[in-house]
């Protein structure tokens, strides 16, 4: 499976360095290494979800209780979480850190991923969620840190798009 282990490690280390201690996740191909890293890390609480929207509630609870968290999901999981994002995280000003695997970009071979890819950025804009792409290993640490900083100062959700060039080694 050509999902990049090395770049998954760079992302995971950035989350750890940012003090993230709880990660909610629903498996998807590009996230397998990140989920395993969370599973193998005794300092991390991994919450496996049935559906991504649950993760919004879990992160909101963890935040109010003083634990920093992140959500790992595919962009289709983001689409499935919209009401929770709007009427829990935005209504109650929760600094949600969402790492969204950006399927359906240029280079996508799976036909079923292409519609979600086409609406992801427009939906983020419609929801006024600040976002930035992670597409090279050398800017991951900085962008994760800055995303967390903005989420916490604004008390609002932010998104990092995990792009094909970072996550997939076949090109």
């Amino acid at each position, binding site marked *: 499976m050509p999902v990049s282990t090395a770049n998954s490690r760079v992302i995971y280390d950035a989350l750890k360095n940012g003090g993230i201690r709880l990660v909610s996740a629903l498996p998807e191909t590009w996230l397998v290494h990140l989920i395993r890293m969370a599973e193998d890390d005794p300092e991390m609480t991994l919450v496996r979800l*049935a559906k991504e*929207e*649950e993760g919004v509630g879990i992160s909101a609870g963890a935040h109010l209780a003083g634990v920093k968290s992140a959500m790992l999901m595919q962009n289709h999981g983001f689409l499935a979480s919209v009401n929770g994002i709007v009427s829990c995280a935005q209504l109650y000003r929760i600094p949600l850190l969402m790492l969204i695997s950006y399927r359906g970009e240029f280079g996508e071979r799976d036909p079923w991923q292409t519609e979600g890819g086409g609406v992801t950025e427009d939906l983020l804009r419609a929801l006024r969620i600040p976002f930035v792409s992670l597409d090279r290993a050398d800017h991951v640490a900085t962008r994760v840190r800055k995303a967390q900083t903005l989420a916490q100062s604004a008390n609002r959700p932010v998104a990092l798009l995990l792009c094909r060039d970072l996550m997939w080694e076949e090109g």
Partner: protein
Amino acid sequence: MKRADALAAVYPQLGDVVVVTIMGAVAAELQSIGHRPNFFYLQHAMGLASSMGLGIALARPEKTVVVFDGDGSILMNLGGLTTLARYRPKNLVHVVFDNESLLSVGGFPTATATGSDIAAMAAAAGVPRTATVRTLDEFTKAFTEAMRAGELSTTVAKVEAVGPAAFVTDLALLENRFEFQRWLRTH
């Protein structure tokens, strides 16, 4: 059994525990009994009160977390029951007030009106302690035992489909949110 009476009956047990409620009648009735800084009312995002309770319970394993849920809300997040059961936090007491209807939006029946059994679904999901209760005495006893049990529970309380005259209270959503956060971080 009326939900307001059930809340009043267990209110003395809600002094030093974390309480998360759903929107609508549950939030308004608990506030009418008496708001406390350890109460958080999720006034939208139907289905996520139980998920918020799970997040708090995992983050603060030494605190008891009580979630007052409803049939309409939990039916929107049945998968969440499997997540609760998977991590089965010992400090989470999940109560579902089941009035078999969506009371605050016209009283239309939910699927529990035609036989869907939330306690059975919770048990099948793997929640170790479940019960359905129909009287105030049964509810008070089941809640008190759940608070002492030291294991995840889902207690379904069958209640009448009656609620308060109004749902909007004078407690602003964000005031509640920041007060609750401050309480959690200082207790």
